C-alpha cells in the first residue's frame, strides 16, 4: 500500500558516489543555472558552434547563411552545442570555487531562470508572430 513514505524522498537510499560529490554538485548547479542564460545570449548574438544545411547534409563550423539553391540552414543544433560547451566550461570553473562561496549561489535560480528565458524566446520568434498577424 502506498503511504507517505512513498512520496517523501527523505527515506530514499543514500546518494551514489557521483551524487554525493560536492564538486559535482557545484558543476551541475552552475551548468543548469547558466544554461538558459547562455542559450539566450548565444541565440541573440547568433554564435552556433556549427551550421547544418539539411538539403545537402552539409555541416559547417560556426555560422553560415543559407546558400542560394541549397535550401535553408539550421542553427538550432549549433546554438544548443555552443550552450552546452559554455555551460560546461562555467560548471568546471565553479568546481574550483570554495564551498563557502558556492553555497551562496541561490539554488532557486535553477528553475527561475528558464522561466525568465521564455519571454525572450517568444520575442526572438517575432518574425513568425508578425507574419501570422499580417496573414
Amino acid at each position, binding site marked *: *500500500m*502506498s*503511504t*507517505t513514505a*512513498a*512520496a*517523501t*524522498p*527523505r527515506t*530514499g537510499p*543514500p*546518494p*551514489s558516489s*557521483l*551524487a*554525493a560529490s560536492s564538486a*559535482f*554538485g557545484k*558543476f*551541475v*548547479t552552475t*551548468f*543548469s*543555472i547558466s*544554461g*538558459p542564460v547562455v*542559450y539566450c545570449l548565444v*541565440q541573440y548574438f547568433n554564435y552556433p558552434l556549427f551550421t*547544418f544545411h*539539411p*538539403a545537402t*547534409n552539409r555541416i559547417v563550423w560556426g555560422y553560415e547563411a543559407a546558400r542560394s539553391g541549397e*535550401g*535553408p540552414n*539550421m542553427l*538550432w*543544433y549549433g*546554438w*544548443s552545442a555552443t*550552450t*552546452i560547451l559554455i*555551460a560546461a566550461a562555467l560548471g568546471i570553473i565553479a568546481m574550483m570555487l570554495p564551498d563557502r562561496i558556492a553555497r551562496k549561489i541561490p*539554488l*532557486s535560480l*535553477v*528553475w*527561475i531562470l*528558464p*522561466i525568465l*528565458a*521564455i519571454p525572450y*524566446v*517568444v520575442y*526572438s*520568434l517575432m518574425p*513568425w*508572430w508578425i*507574419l*501570422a498577424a499580417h*496573414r
Partner: protein
Amino acid sequence: MKDKNTVSAETGSTMSGLISTNTFWTLWLFVHLIFALGLLGALTHQAAAVALPVRKPAGGIVSRFRAVPAAGYATTVCVLWVLTYLVGSYIYTKYRIAIRIPLEAQHYYKTGGFFDFKEHVATLGLVLLPAYWYFWKNAQNPQYDNARKGVTLVLAVMCWFLFIVGHVLNNTRGFAS
C-alpha cells in the same frame, strides 16, 4: 552522397528498397512519440508527487497517482528526455525541408512559430537535467527541497508544452503526410 543506410531528402525515395521514405520517417516519429509518452507519464507522476505529496495511505486513484516513489523516476526522466531530444533532433532535419516549407507556403505561421518555440524549450529543459538529477539523488538533503520541487514542476510544464505542440503539429502535417 547516399549509401544503403541513408535516406534522401526527396519524397518518394526508399531506404534499401525496403520501405518508403514516408514510412521511414513515420517510424522515427512513432519512436519519438513513445519516448515522449514515457517521459510525460514519469514527469507528471513526479510533479504530482512533489506538488501534492500524499499525507496518508493512498486510497483513490488520484492519491495513488501522487503517491509514487518519485525519487526513482529521476534517472529515467533524464534518459527519456535525452532520447526524445535526440530522436526529435533527427526528425527535425526532415521537418525543416518537408514540413516547414509547405507550412510557410500555406501561411501556417503560428504553427511554424510554435514549433521553433518548442525546440528552444526542449534545449532549455535539457540543460536543467543535470541539476534536476542531482537534486533528486540528494533527496535526503532538505537544502535541495525547494529547488527540486521547482525544477521538477518546470520540467513537467515544459514536457506538456512540448507534447501538445508536437501533437498539434503532427495533426497539421505529420504521420503519412
